[in-house]
């Protein structure tokens, strides 16, 4: 059968089982859009900005575990997509981005809407391809999906020149499988590493499991739970790992790191054996590396060798899938006796007793934390929650205990404001039966507002919970603590009337100013199954996120809410962000 390049692309995507594409047309992709128009199996979501397309594909991927797909035109289409691509890259999200490119004959001539897509994206993709020959196209698509979804997942860009989409060739079918000598993602766990790890685990008197995004990405929640219950060890999870192990379980100490709980951070600090599971020792976790976990032997499970030993040197590295590694450990532990850790748990309970997430209520103002608690109650903890970036993001992580993976969708590594709304739209398309809430701030929401229009067009009902504190709150908090309250440019002036705005986009808008109205408004919003509801909730503008480890400090030097511990930061810390 003779097909043109655009048709081969669409055929290939169909063969990959793709059901949704998020995109935006333009000159270089007109042939592709023409082929898409003739295809009934794939639904195209026309976003309002290419960054929104990539975030939506990202939210879709995070909620479903499948590969997200975005389609953008050359030049500005591609550059608009870059923030989305970098966001997915930092959080290891499987995604294929197809971009149009000018015709091969004019590449390099500063042609209309030409940018060096492969060059621009090189450092924020897992891999990228420039296709200039129609006969390579199907193979490249196969490779792109294979690379994006295996090993440590990540975004892969396919840049296709316009002439490639127009050219015709005999299409012999989409390749069934692919073998690349330079890319071998299947890794077998080394048995001797398991033996070494077990030797440390059985001796541990103060063990802790530190689980991260890899447990979610690797669909390892069940194995992780078996391992955790079998050992009886305490477990703490990173921002990206939340949900892999049920937060409401008593072995869970909550999140660790800069805004982690007291018990999680103290346990990390005092531990003699840390089992890191699909986590990458990010600087939000380690704080000051010189003070990080001074007493611990570290076992590190990760699929990516470059994550191991990058920031922290470890005692045993187990390279491979979380599922495989934990299964091997569980197997090897069957006939082993573990050390008694009752004392350790007793110590942890005293730290837990500090109740580091307690916050003071004030009459007449809505505390942001209480909004998240109410959200949890109203949704019975069963909603998918996306967030933007800032204080509100941390409050969700702290006050909405996720018991299942792929329910918590946020940008951790890049910290991209604007992520939450399009990601919620993508998540809703991936899981239409689920409630989806987008917790945001009046700063972040204004970065991707235009997607409200897309959400109406494709009927993706989302509940937008705008914690409107009138400030770029996270910035304000740092300025309060570390810049002597010089609030430079952190006040969000001239805010729109969000209720009217939501209405003008055809959605429901509700303003909540009083505590008493909070619960009913939330209940009403979730009752509207088929409508997007924008809740503009005026919250305490002076509230800060606690606990907090100031940059440069150690885990045991946490700041707690309402206690006499004036925030301080040393010069080394000020160099950090």
């Amino acid at each position, binding site marked *: 059968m003779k097909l043109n390049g655009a048709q081969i692309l669409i055929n290939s995507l169909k063969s990959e089982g793709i059901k949704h594409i998020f995109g935006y047309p333009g000159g270089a992709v007109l042939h592709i859009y023409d082929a898409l128009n003739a295809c009934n199996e794939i639904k195209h979501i026309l976003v309002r900005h290419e960054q929104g397309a990539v975030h939506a594909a990202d939210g879709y991927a995070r909620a479903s575990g499948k590969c997200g797909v975005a389609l953008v035109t050359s030049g500005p289409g591609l550059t608009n997509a870059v923030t989305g691509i970098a966001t997915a890259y930092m959080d290891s999200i499987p995604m294929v981005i197809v971009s149009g490119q000018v015709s091969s004959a004019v590449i390099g001539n500063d042609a209309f809407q030409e940018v060096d897509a*492969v*060059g621009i994206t*090189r*450092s924020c993709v*897992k*891999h990228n391809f*420039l296709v200039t020959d129609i006969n390579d196209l199907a193979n490249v698509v196969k490779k792109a999906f294979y*690379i994006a979804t295996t090993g440590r997942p990540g975004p892969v860009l396919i840049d296709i020149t316009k002439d490639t989409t127009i050219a015709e060739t005999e299409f012999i079918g989409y390749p069934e499988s692919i073998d*690349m*000598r*330079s*890319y071998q993602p299947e890794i077998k766990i080394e048995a001797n590493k398991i033996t070494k790890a077990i030797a440390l685990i059985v001796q541990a008197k103060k063990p802790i499991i530190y689980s991260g995004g890899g447990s979610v990405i690797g669909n390892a929640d069940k194995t992780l739970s078996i391992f955790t219950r079998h050992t009886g060890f305490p477990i703490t999870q990173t921002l990206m790992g939340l949900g892999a192990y049920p937060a409401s379980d008593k072995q869970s100490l909550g999140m660790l790191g800069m805004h982690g709980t007291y018990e999680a951070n103290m346990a990390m600090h005092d531990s003699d054996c840390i089992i890191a599971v699909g986590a990458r020792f990010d600087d939000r976790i380690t704080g000051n590396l010189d003070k990080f976990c001074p007493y611990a032997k570290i076992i590190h499970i990760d699929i*990516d*060798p*470059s994550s191991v*030993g*990058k920031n922290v*040197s470890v005692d045993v590295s187990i390279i491979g899938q979380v599922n495989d590694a934990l299964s091997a450990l569980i197997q090897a532990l069957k006939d082993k006796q573990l050390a008694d850790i009752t004392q350790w748990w007793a110590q942890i309970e005293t730290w837990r007793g500090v109740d580091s997430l307690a916050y003071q209520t004030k009459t007449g103002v809505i505390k942001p934390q209480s909004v998240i608690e109410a959200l949890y109650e109203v949704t019975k903890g069963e909603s998918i929650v996306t967030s933007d970036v800032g204080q509100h993001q941390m409050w969700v992580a702290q006050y909405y205990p996720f018991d299942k993976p792929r329910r918590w969708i946020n940008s951790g590594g890049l910290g991209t404001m604007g992520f939450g709304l399009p990601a919620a739209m993508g998540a809703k398309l991936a899981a239409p039966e689920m409630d989806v809430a987008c917790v945001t701030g009046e700063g972040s929401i204004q970065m991707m507002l235009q997607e409200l229009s897309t959400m109406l067009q494709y009927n993706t009902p989302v509940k937008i919970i705008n914690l409107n504190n009138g400030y770029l709150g996270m910035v304000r908090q740092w300025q309060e603590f570390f810049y002597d309250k010089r609030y430079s440019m952190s006040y969000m002036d001239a805010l729109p009337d969000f209720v009217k705005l939501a209405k003008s986009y055809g959605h429901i808008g509700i303003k909540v100013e009083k505590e008493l109205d909070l619960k009913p408004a939330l209940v009403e919003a979730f009752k509207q199954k088929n409508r997007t509801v924008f809740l503009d909730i005026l919250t305490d503008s002076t509230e800060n996120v606690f606990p907090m480890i100031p940059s440069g400090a150690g885990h045991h030097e946490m700041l707690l809410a309402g206690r006499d511990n004036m925030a301080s930061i040393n010069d080394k810390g000020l160099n950090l962000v």
Partner: protein
Amino acid sequence: MRYIISVLLENEAGALSRVAGLFSARGFNIESLTVAATNDSTLSRMTIVSIGDDNIIEQIVKQLNKLIDVVTVTDLTATEHIERELLLVKVDVNQQTQADIDKQIDIFSCKIVDLSEDTYTIELAGKSQKINDFLASLDVSKILEVSRTGVTGVCMKITS
């Protein structure tokens, strides 16, 4: 420490820029980098000299391995190996300096590959240190142009 890393990679457009981009993006330092085709036309061999501590080199090797186009990465300095670099240097010669230059050429076993009335173009292959030593033996003011290839190398034992 100075490390020589040998990389076998797919001979694809853009492969070189991926490696070069990786070094600049991650702040790794490159002393020299050479690349050319191998006996298998689908593969290129790249030899990189970098300076760093063990941790940095470990990360460099891991990050190189992570590049999709890279087939194998070998730290030559971790095994017995042979390294060579080629120098072409053009020097100013006149009656007063000729004897001295001829003597250095003799000591270092260089080749004169081109002569003109008042210049020599000298070729020398060897370890980088030898090339440094030879250049140091010349009168700086007489050196007109230096061009070095950067290091290439092979393991002495058979590797895949």
